[in-house]
């Protein structure tokens, strides 16, 4: 496990720290602030191309797809030009790869819903009467399972447009996104935040909270014996959440190593009200994007998902004559208003990427050490098409993914292949991504470095 080295230098296990606390003695972490991510010589880890910074992952998702005719870049490989719709990414062209022409392999059983499940989990949508859920975890959670457990937050979910998002731990289990940047700021940089390099204030209640979690966990295990198989699975997941929270409480008592790039971002406004019925999506997104960049730079979290907008959303974008979803279906071709909305979405994606690229980390930027995937649940929304799925990859995950290119999938390869490459590049070493028609066992080698 790569991340072990980050804590290995302390010479103290978390349990040791906790026992010290519970025993009544305040444990002083008698070690100098470490240049976290650097090796003992103060230089970056060099082995196997590893630059010493942890891999991080960000998902940027929007609803209602694209217009493939105006989305797909011209040219292929490293000789390519951005399209109309991708133009807002011009400043970072050398740090992105656009993959076009892939398709989702799961059955298109429900407009928008099946595509969201197909792109984000690779699995068919599960029907539950008139309602639906995912058949398995979404990509951010697959990755968080592998790389999310060493930080204060396992993953963070947020988005400019309110909604439940699609960050699934599994069927019927959503991680709801935070739509208030103020609330998210308080959660990350409020109580419980210790500036890397500083010594945390010892909170005498942490031990009590943990012993309560222990007994709650034991009670869950007792209850599991009395319930049927499906409910037992639900309780198992509850138990797992308790265990993760306990781990986090232990982490709060450790002195986080110094991180040069870490800074507390500006506190957001309490609210960004709609103006004339139109949400301030770009401004909200900008605030989230910068806050998230510093959350990563301060190593509070390594996995995020930005639910910019949702499938079937009918939001009134700036200057649009009506809601987004309605336009995708009812605007006559070539859908100029849908096009303008898509450009606004790509501007928001560009803002997220730029915020990550603005933070220096070692010889590169935060973006260089991570991977961002921008995608949607459909290609052409008008027909709920599962072909021509939009995929923008940004950052190279420390050189694991090729950037500065357009990969055109002429044969309509499975979108899951790209997602598998993404997972593996950031450290989730999965044997496969998805199931049934959405299953991929091999990544997309053309984008792997």
């Amino acid at each position: 496990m790569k991340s072990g080295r980050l804590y290995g230098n302390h010479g103290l296990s978390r349990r040791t720290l906790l026992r010290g606390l519970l025993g009544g003695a305040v444990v002083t972490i008698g070690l100098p602030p470490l240049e976290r991510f650097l090796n003992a010589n103060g230089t970056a880890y060099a082995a196997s191309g590893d630059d010493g910074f942890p891999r991080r992952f960000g998902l940027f998702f929007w609803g209602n797809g694209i217009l493939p005719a105006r989305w797909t870049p011209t040219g292929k490989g490293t000789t390519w030009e951005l399209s109309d719709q991708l133009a807002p990414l011009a400043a970072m062209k050398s740090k992105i790869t656009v993959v076009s022409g892939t398709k989702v392999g799961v059955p298109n059983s429900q407009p928008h819903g099946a595509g969201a499940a197909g792109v984000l989990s690779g699995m068919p949508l599960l029907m539950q009467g008139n309602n639906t859920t995912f058949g398995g975890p979404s990509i951010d959670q697959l990755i968080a399972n592998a790389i999310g457990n060493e930080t204060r937050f396992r993953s963070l979910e947020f988005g400019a447009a309110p909604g439940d998002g699609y960050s699934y731990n599994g069927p019927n289990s959503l991680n709801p996104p935070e739509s208030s940047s103020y609330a998210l700021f308080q959660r990350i940089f409020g109580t419980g935040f210790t500036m890397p390099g500083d010594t945390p204030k010892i909170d005498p209640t942490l031990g009590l909270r943990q012993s309560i979690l222990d007994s709650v966990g034991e009670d869950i295990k007792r209850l599991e014996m009395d319930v049927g198989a499906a409910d037992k699975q639900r309780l198992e997941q509850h138990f797992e959440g308790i265990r993760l929270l306990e781990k986090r409480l232990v982490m709060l008592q450790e002195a986080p190593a110094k991180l040069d790039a870490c800074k507390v971002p500006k506190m957001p406004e309490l609210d960004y009200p709609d103006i004339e019925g139109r949400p301030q999506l770009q401004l909200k997104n900008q605030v989230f994007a910068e806050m998230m960049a510093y959350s990563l730079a301060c190593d509070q979290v390594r996995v995020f998902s930005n639910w910019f907008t949702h499938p079937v959303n009918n939001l009134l974008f700036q200057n649009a004559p009506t809601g987004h979803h309605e336009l995708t279906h009812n605007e006559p071709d070539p859908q100029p208003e849908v096009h303008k909305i898509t450009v606004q979405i790509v501007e928001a994606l560009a803002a997220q990427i730029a915020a990550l690229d603005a933070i220096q980390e070692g010889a590169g930027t935060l973006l260089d050490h991570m991977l961002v995937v921008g995608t949607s649940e459909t290609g052409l929304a008008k027909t709920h098409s599962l072909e021509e799925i939009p995929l923008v990859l940004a950052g190279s995950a420390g050189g694991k993914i090729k950037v500065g290119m357009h990969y055109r999938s002429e044969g309509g390869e499975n979108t899951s292949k790209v997602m598998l490459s993404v997972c593996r590049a950031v450290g989730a070493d999965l044997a496969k991504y998805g199931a049934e028609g959405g299953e991929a066992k091999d990544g997309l080698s053309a984008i792997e470095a």
Partner: protein
Amino acid sequence: MLQFKTPRFAAALALLCSFGCQTPAKSTAVPLAISPAPPALPRLTRAQYENSIHDVLGADLVPPATLEPDVPYDDLYSVGASVAKTSPRGIELYEDGARNLATQVIAKPERLAALLPCTATSTTDGACLDAFVAKVGGKLWRRALTGDERAVLVATGLQAAAKLGGFQYGVSYTLVAMLQSPRFLYRPEVGEPDPDHGGRRLTAFELASRLSHFLWNGPPDDALLAAAQDGSLNTEDGIGAQIDRMMADAKVHRAVRNFADEWLQLRDLLDLNKDPNVYKHFSSDLGASAREETLSLVEYLALDQDADFRELLLTRTTFVDRRLAAIYDIPAVSDKGVAKVEQPPGERIGLLGQVSFLAMRAHPVSSSPTLRGKYVRQMLLCDHVPNPPAGLNTALPEPTTTAKTMRERLTVHMSVPSCANCHKFIDPIGLGFEHFDGIGRFRTTENGENIDTTGTLDDAPFADLTSLANDVAQSPKYPACVAQKMFAYAVGRPVTDGEQAQLDVLGAAFVDSGLRLKTLMRAVALSEGFRRIGARDDTVTGATP
């Protein structure tokens, strides 16, 4: 494997059959030929969590602003409660919430005193803390705690009291523990042998809990727990007396409101989204007003008036605030909140003439006969409406000089066979609402053209909203549908195929009562399907976590 009663019609052919008219069979057979459903483990819905806090710890406590969202199943959040899984974030929110609530409890001495059955004689008065745990824990966990359970909680509390230097911390940390327990967050149903029917039934405490969450949308009170403790809840007289008592309590209002909120999909109104340039009456809080109008009407008809529930569709009575009055073009009678008014003579009647339905089943700049027709089918008649086949272009043509009205634009649905298969069951209903625009304002023309509101419901022609509402109200599918939704809501899990006979009996009882919702609720609470359970389902199903 358990079969949920969920119609899954893959083909258009099956769809046709699903719209066939079925009259609920009258019941004569006793006992019922039902196979009771397996026990469930509903997670408290957010509303139930909040109500539990208010009922047990104090009406003035501020519940957590954020908890993991409820999950809908078959259009009901109370049913989804039995499949919902809690995410790691949800666990954090439960912990935050528990700590925050416990802090609130000890922040005011009078609040603490009201909850404590004793006066602590020392910082670590174990006996007093044990009495507190027995009293408050019994309410939160909805049953008497075992000695072992109390001992673990008291030990936790005493540790906190000693460490933080005050008995009140013992109280707050036992609360933190009790509020995070699966015994509080879920309603476990294990059951016991049923001496009356063979098989199994809910234990008396489990039955008390199911009753209170159904009839109060919250926890049992002391009297109900006492009836469970002394066994009287397991007798016909005992449960009947408890139901009567509960139905007479003001808390039944919040349950009826919550049922209406879930059944009629009123939460959708919180995301209402209209173009203010097209609809000058729109503001971001209109959805909340419209939701309150509908909830107030249901409450008034079902509880205050004990009215025939067809009145929901037929009445001119409604509840408006200034904002809604402006949309209805009637005088506002209240400066703040909604107040009861009569709609003037005209086409607008009942639920289907309210802003709630008309605005949430419409687009940001236009009406939607399709969404409105689908709602009538799905929510009021319990017909299954499949999703449109994916991969289809669902675009509607823009208004043109020859096709100015929505009806004219919708003809594409009828002229393309792949669309017509389904839309012929939906659009002809939805077109009946075309005198009401995308926010529910009355109009007679669209783009200068007179609007035609005629249509058909299950082959019977109607002229406009008034006659359509009558047809829906008189359809035998309407009471059967209300009964089905009510039963599913009450048991808090998906209805299974083995329960059809139960649904038939309840539908018939509802009709026999002249569609009295209170009578239906009582019948549901007394029904075998509500009290009996099947064997535990130990089958592991396919979905990989």
